[in-house]
Structure formats: structure tokens, C-alpha cells
């Protein structure tokens, strides 16, 4: 009906505005991130070689038309490995961020809504969790469950939750005291309903900004674990792992294997954090 049509048009207009409305830096960041994600998703189609296709005769080759970014000590194509190597970090960081955000939202909204002793207990627990560096927690998880993909992801997700929760709690407490929430209570809705349908949508802008920035940090932490040999294991293609495997190459004057994944991590994280902060700044300007 007319209602649906008008609302759909308004929604698409809003989506368009939120992407095109940013400045060129934000747009460049988004463009780069889209390229990275596309590269990771379409790696089987784009990569000229298999990520683990060894060709000892072609070891340590420079940049050429056969091997765009050269080859590593086993003759594996670095460009192909770079494309495949984006998959686990992006997936892992996404999982960490997603779990941390979901947990943070649930914990923080409940604490802010119920208040009183529950809020106090939650806040103090968060403070305790803050005392543990994320990486330490992840190393602990690896020590307990062995290296791999799952253990560090879960450990980092738990380590990231307090950061999300504390931010969301502060925003939720502010929103909760706004008159429209009172007006909702007077309508006779349950607290849970008001939280999900009315409070959450008002928190989302902040959550999205924070989640974008912490995605970048999660990416770095995951790469650090892989670099330390605590994450995914060889011969998997993974940026952090590639850097550590490329170390001997640096000494042998073949820095490509460590250089390019390092660059990709820096660029991706920079793009994420820049975009996130610009979104945040835009938000606060609009308010």
C-alpha cells in the first residue's frame, strides 16, 4: 500500500545518504574494505594459483606477470595466498566482534534497565575483566584448548565484551532516562519489550561505530596470535601466519611474503578505524 511504498523509498534514501553522504576519505575506506572482502570471498575465482600449491623450482621469485607479488620460500604464489589469507582473519574478527557486541548489548542493556544491585555487580565484573589484556586471555585459552581458530576467537570475544558493554551501558542509561521510555511504560509494555523494540534501536548508532573500530582491533589481535604461532597453523594461508613465515625471507632479501600481508593488515585496520571514527564524528555533529 501507500504506507509501505513511502517507507521503502524513505529507507533506500536513508541508506544511500549514509554511504554517499560521507566525505571522500570515508568513501575510500569503504571502497577498500569492500575490495578486501570481495577478494576474500571470491578468492577461488580470483587467485591464479592454489594457496598451498608448492613449486620449489619457483621459490623466492620477484614481482612478475606470472606471480604478481612474487613467491615465497616454497614457491607458493603470494598474491593467491594473500587473497585466501584474508578469509580467516576477516571471519575470525567478524565472529569476535559479533559475539562481543551481542553479549555486550545483552549484558549492558539488562544492567542499565534493571539498575540497582545488578548494575553494580555487572559493572564491577566488567572492571575485573578489564584488568586482563585480551591477548593474555587468548594465550590462556590456547594453553588450555590448544592452538587453532576457535579457542582464540572465543577468548578474544570474551575479552572484547567488557569494552562493548561499558560503552553501551553508559549510552543505555542515558537513553533509559529519556521521557519516551516512560511514555512506553505507560503504554503497558513489559520491560523486555521496551528494551528490544524501543531502547535498542536508539543504541544502534553508537554500537555500529564502536563495532567498526573494534573489528579493526580484533583483526590485529588475531594476526598477533597467528604471528606468535598460537592461532591457525601452517600450512593454512593467514595474514598473521604469513608474516611469521616470511621472517627468514626478510633476512634473505626477499621481504615480499612478510611485507604484503603486513601492509594488508595495516591498511584494513586503518580503513576500519578511520571509517568508524568518521561515522562517530558525523553522528555527534548531527546530534
Amino acid at each position, binding site marked *: *500500500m*501507500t*504506507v*509501505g511504498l*513511502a*517507507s521503502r523509498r*524513505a529507507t533506500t534514501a536513508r541508506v544511500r545518504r549514509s554511504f554517499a553522504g560521507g566525505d571522500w576519505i570515508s568513501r575510500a575506506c569503504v571502497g577498500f574494505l569492500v575490495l578486501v572482502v570481495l577478494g576474500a570471498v571470491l578468492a577461488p575465482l580470483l587467485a591464479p594459483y592454489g594457496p598451498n600449491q608448492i613449486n620449489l623450482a619457483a621459490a623466492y621469485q620477484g614481482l612478475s606477470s606470472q606471480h604478481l607479488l612474487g613467491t615465497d620460500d616454497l614457491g607458493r604464489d603470494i598474491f593467491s595466498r594473500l587473497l585466501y589469507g584474508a578469509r580467516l582473519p576477516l571471519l575470525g574478527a567478524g565472529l569476535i566482534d559479533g559475539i562481543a557486541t551481542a553479549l555486550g548489548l545483552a549484558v549492558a542493556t539488562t544492567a542499565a534497565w534493571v*539498575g*540497582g544491585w545488578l548494575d553494580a555487580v555487572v559493572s564491577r565484573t566488567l572492571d575485573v575483566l578489564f584488568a586482563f589484556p585480551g591477548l593474555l586471555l587468548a594465550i590462556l585459552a590456547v594453553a588450555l584448548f590448544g592452538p587453532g581458530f576457535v579457542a582464540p576467537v572465543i577468548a578474544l570475544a570474551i575479552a572484547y565484551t567488557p569494552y562493548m558493554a561499558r560503552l553501551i551501558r553508559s549510552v543505555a542509561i542515558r537513553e533509559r532516562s*529519556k*521521557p*519516551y521510555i*516512560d*511514555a*512506553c*511504560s*505507560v*503504554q*503497558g*509494555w*513489559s520491560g523486555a*519489550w521496551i528494551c528490544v*523494540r*524501543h531502547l535498542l*534501536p*536508539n543504541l544502534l548508532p553508537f554500537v555500529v561505530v564502536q563495532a567498526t573500530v573494534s573489528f579493526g582491533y580484533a583483526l590485529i589481535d588475531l594476526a598477533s596470535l597467528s604471528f606468535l604461532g598460537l592461532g591457525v597453523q601452517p600450512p593454512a594461508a593467514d595474514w598473521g601466519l604469513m608474516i611469521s613465515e616470511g621472517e627468514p625471507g626478510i633476512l634473505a632479501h626477499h621481504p615480499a611474503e612478510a611485507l604484503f600481508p603486513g601492509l594488508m593488515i595495516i591498511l584494513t585496520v586503518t580503513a576500519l578505524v578511520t571509517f568508524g571514527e568518521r561515522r562517530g564524528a558525523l553522528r555527534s555533529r548531527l546530534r
Partner: protein
Amino acid sequence: MKDPLLRLQELCLWLPVKGGLAPILEDVNFTIHRGEAFGLVGESGSGKSMTARCISRLLPRGAKVTGDVLLEGVSTLSLTPRDLRAVRSSKVQIIFQDPRAHINPVRRVGDYLTEVLVTERGVEQDVANRRAIEILETIGVTAASTRLAQYPHEMSGGLLQRIMIAAALLVEPELLIADEPTTALDVTTQADVVALLDDMRRDRGLALLFITHDLELAAAICDRTGVMYAGTIVEVQTSAMLHQRPLHPYTAALLAARPSLTAQVRPVTISGSPVALADAPAGCTFAPRCAYQDSRCRLERPTLREGGVGSVACVRAHEIASQLAVVAESARG
């Protein structure tokens, strides 16, 4: 006489402050019958809104309430959360002062209007939409169907206030509490909204608790009016008589403080400034500012007593009645 729809009995309220509880309301008593409009007037901070919030039990954490609020004979203060929600979603609706602050900014107006019907009453979404459009058209909102898809920020304050009124009327409550519904609006819109509320009350026979600091407005809408000062009700009587023959010195002083359109008289101000109940003296809360106070006023706090036409909380009410009538008379010009 039939049982009233709403009866407030010796309602007292304390709110938590640093280091204890501060008294906000003391001994608030009044009744509202079905189809009746009751006005509650008073200065800012006199406890009008808090009284309204007590009725719907919309109180901050840590608030202490004694006395009782009886809605159709049932105490809303002792309802279980589930029953309280049922009362809120079907019997009592509140129209707030500032519509822009009281409507969720990120939800469509249509959602705001129909959500109660859909979630609490199980009405189909398109039926609810149709009813929302009907109500909006009744209260003079043009292009009602496109309004449903808009967001609050796309609307003017007057329109939003109508949306809020529509939302309150949609659930067909027994009691409508209007908490200064026209304060945020300009005068012409104000007149529209007031006329609208009056129509709705007559058409639907709902009871109206109209909170305002505008005596004229209360007189225009309400059958009876209560005057509040420092968390107590000092006088209740019919709106017409309140203007002609005020029973409490405070009411008379309020009437005298209004500028007149016809007479060339300077409004008489009330000396001093309003006090909070917590800072009020031991006797009559109004005594320090009252022109008629004597030693008895400082001894104990007078309670609201029935007397002929209305009720008044003043120990000297009988002695000064004729003087107050003169004050009101001269204020009318």
C-alpha cells in the same frame, strides 16, 4: 452517588534524594467520576505531574508511596506487574507535555500509534492502521495515511501532540491524563487541542484529568478544579465557583495575579516564592506567603475539609470567605 472512576486517598509520596527521602506529595485526596473533567492547577513543582504519575505508578526507583489510588475500586498501587500493564494499556493513558521527548525518535509514527493495539490487544496490523488513520482524521490530521510512515522529526510540535493524543485515544481508555498537553504549543494550536480533548470527552464519555498551570484553561475545560500548592491540595470546587468565590487565599491570590484584558488594574503578585513540600513550614504550607495568616496557621497543617460547595484546606476559610470573594471580584475587573 455512583462509585467514582478514580479516587485518591490520602496519597503521600516521597522521592529518594541524597541521604534520604524528600516528601513530594502529602494527603492528596480527590475523585474523578466517569465522563468528568477534573482540573489540577498549581505552580511548577507543586506536585501536579507527580500526582498524575502516581495514578499510573510511573515512579522513579526508590519512591515511597502511602495512601491509595483506587481505579474502579481497585488499588493500582498494589497491582502485580502483569495487572499493572493491563491497566496501563487499556484503562489509563497519559498525554505528556513535550511530545517530541515522549515519542521514540527512531520509530515511525505509525508504529507508535498501533503498537499497543497490535501487541497487547492482538489487533491485526492493517486493522490497527485503519483505526489509526480514522482517529487521526477525526482529530484533524490531514494526509493521515502518509503520516503513519513518517518519523517524529518530520513533524511539527502541534502535529506530534495530536499524534500523542491519537495514540492515547486509540486504546479507548477510561481515564485520560493530560499533563500540560498544550504548554509546548502556540496559542492557536493550543485552542485546537483543547477543543479536541473536550470533544473527545463528550463523545466518548471518558474521564479527563487535566493538569495545567493555566487557571483560565482549567475553567474552560473542567467541571471541577483542584488547586495544588507545595504537594498538597488546598482547594477543590467547581471551576466556575473557583473563579467567582475562591475558598483558599492561595487561589484568590492566583486569580488576583492574572493580568486583566478589560480592567486597567495592575496584577497583584504573591510575595515570596513557591516552596517545595520538603522546605514547607510545619503549619499551613502557604502560611509564610499568605496575607490572611495568623497564629493558628503556623500550628498545624490544615486538611482538606468538605464545606458546602467545595473543599478547602484552610483554618480561616470561613472567616475570610467574603474577603476572598472581593479579591476575586476585583481581579475580574
